[in-house]
């Protein structure tokens, strides 16, 4: 059992708290460029995700990777999270998991 490499729940606003660390976020792809995408996080902030999303992809995608700076993630794992997803709930979870209940996660 190994808890040395957790991935913190982040949205655009919380990314700055985990620069250089492993993070996870759910995004909606706004624009695809070569080698990266521009996504909208669950708190409606645009972030850059380096890497290539899965094909085919759904509306919501979870990315797990390393936070490069306070608005971009270098993705290692992409997971389709479906076309319908409760982004508000997930965003609230991000707040809780980085706030009072951080000790249950990191």
């Amino acid at each position, binding site marked *: *059992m190994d*808890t040395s490499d957790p991935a913190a729940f982040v949205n655009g606003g919380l990314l700055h708290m985990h620069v250089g660390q492993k993070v*996870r976020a759910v995004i909606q792809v706004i624009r695809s460029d070569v080698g990266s995408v521009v996504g909208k996080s669950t708190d409606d902030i645009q972030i850059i995700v380096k890497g290539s999303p899965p094909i085919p992809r759904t509306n919501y995608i979870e990315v797990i990777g390393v936070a490069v700076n306070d608005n971009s993630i270098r993705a290692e794992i992409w*997971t389709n999270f479906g076309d319908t997803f409760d982004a508000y709930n*997930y965003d609230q*979870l991000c707040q809780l998991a980085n706030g009072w209940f951080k000790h249950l*996660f*990191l």
Partner: protein
Amino acid sequence: MSSNNPFDATSAFSGGGFMPSQRQPSRFADSTPSPSKGRDSQGLIPVTVKQISEASQSGDEKSNFTINGVDVTNVTVVGMLFDKKVRSFNDIRFHLDDGTGRIECIRWVTENSETRQMDEIDDGTYVRLNGHLQSFQGKRQLVAFSVRPVTNFDEVTFHYIDCIYLHLYNAKLLTQCQGGALTQPQLIESLSNTPVHTTSNGYQTPSFNNFTVDVSPDGLKGFDKLVLNYLQQPSNIEREMGVHLKEISQQLKSPIEKIKDAIEFLEKEGLVYSSIDDYHYKAVEGC
């Protein structure tokens, strides 16, 4: 349980003082814990791998785990399946990574349907795993009795919220919060309606002897708590614009300077925030 089971209450222990519920469930591969063992160990406890790693064990490897003072034997976790290895036709091993940690899992398959279920799950699939927590040669493992792929990913969000909820419930904060919410409106109402002895300063200082709302992790002074409680009332939480300082001052029958001091402290603690302007405030939600 079958009557061949020597621990069946109707045979070996009928009329005796020995409680059959004292048997350890982990010794029996397919036994179910008796109801008198404790309600909380019967259901599936939603946990994160981090919580599992920090669970305490009362004795040796065979003893039960404890999380938040609750006996934990069967758990439910949601995470990504990795490193699936089929060791034999009925022994499948894999790791589950839920973002808080990785734990080794064992799935014993005895029926074709179970084998088919595991065949369909590849590395990288999000799964809901229900299983029994055990310790073997110093390592904590999950013996899974159900592994199901996640199809609606709101389940992922739900699982972590479920973990937080149960953590709060078992840590008794939730019950205090509910108790506090019931008494708050009564106290605030009594402050504004019933005549209370005023001190020489002209404002009242209510006593908190029978009032337990200590739900914040750091102890707040009485008056700060009063202001916070007022803002935490559901009717005030719902007000998008927040509550004006003057209103708090009128409702709590306290001078506006005292309210401002309390608000300043609460804001620093991250418990309230200003909404539409510097005179309107709202309580941070998530008691």
